[in-house]
C-alpha cells in the first residue's frame, strides 16, 4: 500500500481523468441538489441504490488490491473521485465504506468483502471513541462515536485491542445498541455501544492497516471538501456576475472582487495541497512523510472549506441565508466534514511532529 504505483505521469493523468468522467455520471457537479434535498433529514440520509451503483463501478474497492477483487488504483484516483462527489454533494458514505473494504481486503478477509465491495452491505468501521482523533484505542466496551450515516449500516466493523494487537470484529446492526443523531447536512452520526458477544472476529492484526487507511480516508475527505469548496465558490461567482445593486453588477465592486480573488487563491492552494499529497502517497511515501503529506492537505482543506463556504454566504447576502438557496448545503457539508478524520488543529500538530525540517523537504 505504501509502494509506488506503476505508470508514467501521462498514464496516471489519463487514469485520473477517466475516474472523473465516470463520477460525473453518478454525481453531477452541483447538478442534482434536488436529489440531495429529498434525502435530507430522514433515514438513512442517502440512497442505498446509489451506494450499490458506486460498488458496481468499482469505487468502494478502488483502493483494494486487484487480487482481492478491488481496482488497485491510487490516491490520485481516489482524490479525484472524492472531489467530484464533493462537488456533487453526494450523501452516500463512500469514504467510510471504502475504508472498511480497504482494511478488510488488505487484511486478507474474503468472506464479507465481496458484498462490501459490491455496495450490497454498508459496514462502516466503528473505530472512534472520542472526538477529533485518529487514534484507535480499541477498548472492548467504550462507545464508538460519530459513525457516518450509521442509520444505513447493516454491519459495523469493530476494532478491538487484544494484547498488543488490534483485531477486527464484524457486528451485525440488528440488535446492536445504536443511537442516531442528525447532522447538519441531513445525514446522521451513530453512537454504538459494542457488544462483542454478538460479533464475529474477521481479522487478527489490523492496527497498522487501519491507521494507514484512516490516513487515506482523511486525505479523501480533504479532496471531497475541495469539491465542496469549488462548487460553493462557483455559485458565488455566478451570483457576483448577475446580481445587480446600485445599478451595477455586484461583481464589479472591488472589495468583492478582491475577496473573490482571495477565495480563489485558497482553492488553488487546497488543490495543490491535496493533489501533491496524493502524488506523494502514490509515489510510495511512508511513515512520517506519509502522515505529514496527509496532514498538510487535511489541515488546509478543513480551514479553507469552512472559510470559503461561509464567505460564499456573505457574498450572497440575504438570499445566501435561506435554506432554499443552495449555498447553505455547501456550508453544512463543510461543517460535517471539516473535522472528520481530524480537525485542522490536530493535523497542524501532527504535521509539525512528522514533517521533515530543512532545506530539502
Amino acid at each position, binding site marked *: 500500500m505504501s509502494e509506488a504505483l506503476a505508470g508514467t505521469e501521462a498514464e496516471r493523468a489519463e487514469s485520473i481523468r477517466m475516474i472523473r468522467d465516470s463520477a460525473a455520471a453518478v454525481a453531477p457537479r452541483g447538478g442534482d441538489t434536488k436529489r440531495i434535498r429529498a434525502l435530507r433529514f430522514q433515514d438513512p440520509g442517502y440512497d442505498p441504490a446509489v451506494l450499490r451503483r458506486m460498488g458496481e463501478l468499482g469505487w468502494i474497492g478502488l483502493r483494494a488490491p486487484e487480487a482481492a477483487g478491488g481496482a488497485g488504483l491510487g490516491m490520485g484516483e481516489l482524490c479525484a473521485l472524492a472531489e467530484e462527489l464533493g462537488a456533487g454533494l453526494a450523501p452516500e458514505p463512500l469514504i467510510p465504506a471504502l475504508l472498511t473494504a480497504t482494511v478488510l481486503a488488505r487484511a486478507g478477509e474474503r468472506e464479507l468483502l465481496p458484498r462490501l465491495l459490491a455496495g450490497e452491505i454498508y459496514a462502516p468501521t466503528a473505530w472512534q471513541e472520542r*472526538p477529533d482523533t485518529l487514534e484507535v484505542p480499541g477498548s472492548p466496551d467504550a462507545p464508538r462515536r460519530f459513525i457516518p450515516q450509521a442509520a444505513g449500516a447493516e454491519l459495523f466493523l469493530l476494532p478491538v485491542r487484544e494484547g498488543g494487537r488490534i483485531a477486527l470484529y464484524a457486528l451485525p446492526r440488528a440488535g446492536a445498541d445504536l443511537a442516531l443523531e442528525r447532522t447538519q447536512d441531513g445525514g446522521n452520526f451513530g453512537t454504538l455501544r459494542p457488544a462483542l458477544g454478538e460479533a464475529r472476529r474477521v481479522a487478527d492484526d489490523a492496527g497498522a492497516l487501519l491507521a494507514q487507511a484512516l490516513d487515506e480516508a482523511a486525505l479523501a475527505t480533504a479532496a471531497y471538501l475541495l469539491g465542496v469548496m469549488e462548487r460553493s465558490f462557483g455559485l458565488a461567482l455566478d451570483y457576483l456576475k448577475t446580481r445587480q445593486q446600485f445599478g451595477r453588477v455586484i461583481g464589479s465592486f472591488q472589495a468583492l472582487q478582491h475577496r473573490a480573488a482571495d477565495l480563489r487563491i485558497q482553492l488553488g492552494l487546497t488543490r495543490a495541497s491535496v493533489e501533491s499529497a496524493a502524488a506523494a502517497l502514490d509515489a510510495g511515501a511512508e511513515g512520517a512523510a506519509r502522515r505529514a503529506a496527509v496532514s498538510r492537505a487535511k489541515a488546509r482543506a478543513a480551514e479553507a472549506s469552512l472559510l470559503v463556504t461561509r464567505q460564499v454566504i456573505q457574498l450572497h447576502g440575504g438570499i*445566501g441565508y435561506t435554506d432554499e438557496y443552495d449555498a447553505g448545503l455547501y456550508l453544512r457539508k463543510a461543517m460535517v466534514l471539516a473535522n472528520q478524520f481530524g480537525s485542522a488543529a490536530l493535523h497542524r500538530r501532527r504535521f509539525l511532529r512528522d514533517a521533515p525540517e530543512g532545506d530539502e523537504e
Partner: protein
Amino acid sequence: MTAAPAAPAEPEDLNALDDEAFRLHVRRWIEANYPPELRHPPKRLHWKDNKVWYFKLAEKGWLCPGWPKEYGGMGLSPAKQIIFTEELERWGCARTNDHGIVLLGPLIINYGTEEQKRYFLPKILSGEHIWCQGYSEPNAGSDLASLRTEAVEDGDHYVVNGQKIWTTLAQDANWIFLLVRTDKQAKKQEGISFLLVPMDTPGITVKPIINLELHDEFCEVFFDNVRVPKRNLVGQINKGWDMAKALLGFERIYLGSPRQSAYALKGLRALAEHMGVWEEPEFRDRYARLRLDLEDLKAFYGVYVAKLRRGETLGPDVSMLKICQTELFQRIADAMLEIAGENAGLLGPIEGNRDLNPTGLYIQARPATIYGGSNEIQRNIVAKNVLGLPG
C-alpha cells in the same frame, strides 16, 4: 456589581434614579418576572411563544422604554434605554414582536397625525396590533434607491403592487408598515412614502422563508392590487425614506452591543472545557485574543454610550461598532466550530445541552454581517462619511 438586595417600592421617576440604581431596579424585576424557560432562546420566538412576556411588560408599563410618558411609554433617557436593553440582553430575554414598539411607535409619535396617534399607539401598548416592517425588497436590500413596490392613487385609496422580503415575523403580524414608491420619476431615495396596511387586506400573501437555522423568522410578503386608505399614509408623501432613516440612527448602536459576543464567548469557554482544550496553550492564546477583542469592544461601545449620555447624537462612525461586534461574534463562533471535533457536524446541541451548541451559533452568526446594512455597506459608510474618501 453585587446581587440585588430586597426590592424597594417602585420609584416614581425612573429617570431620577442614578444609573446603578436604575440598573439594579430593572434587573430585579426582570429576574423575578421573565419566564425562565425562555432565557437565551436559540431562535427568534413567534408571537404564540413570546406574547406572555409582551403582556408582562405591557402590564408593568415597561413595554415602550423610549416612548414619552404621555403616550404610555417609560420616557427613559437614551442612556437609561441602553441600560434597560443591556439588562434584557444580560438575562437572555427573547426579543418580542417589537416592530411596533421600536420603529413604528416613534415614527407615528414624530410624524403621525393626532388621529393616527390616538388610534395606533394604544393598540401597540395593548398587543392588539402586532406590526411587521416592509422595507427590504428582492432587489433593494442595502439599496433603497431600487425600491419597486409601488402605490398608485385611486380616489381616496392607494393601490399597492409589489413584493417585500426579509419581513421579520410577518406571519405573526396583523399590520405592516411599508415603504412604497409613490413617484417613479424621482431619483434615488426620493419619491418613497410610508404606508400602514392591515395584513388581512385582500391581495396580501405571506410566504415564510426557511432560513439556515431551519427557522421561519423571515417572510416574503406579496401585494397584488392591495387597496389602502389614504388616511394610512404617515407624514408627507414622497418623504417616507427620510423619516424611516431618521429613526434608524438610534437603532444602530444596538447592533454594536457587545452582549451577543459576550454570550458567545461564554459558550466558547464552556465548549473548550467540554472538549478538554481549555488548558491548552494554543487555545488559550486564541481565547485571550477573543477576550481582549471583546473587552476593547466593550470600551469602544462605552464611548458611544457616553455620547448618548451627554445628549449627543450618534454619527456615521457608529457603523464601526456594528462591524466590530458582528465580526467578533463570527470569529468566536468560528473558533467554536473548529474546536468542536466531529460535533461541528451535529444538527443540534452536544448531548442535548443547549449551552454546548457550536453549530447553532455558527449558523446564527452568519447573517449578523448581512442584516442591518451589510458590513460591506458599513465599510462604505465609514470610508465615505467618516474618513471623507470620495464616492
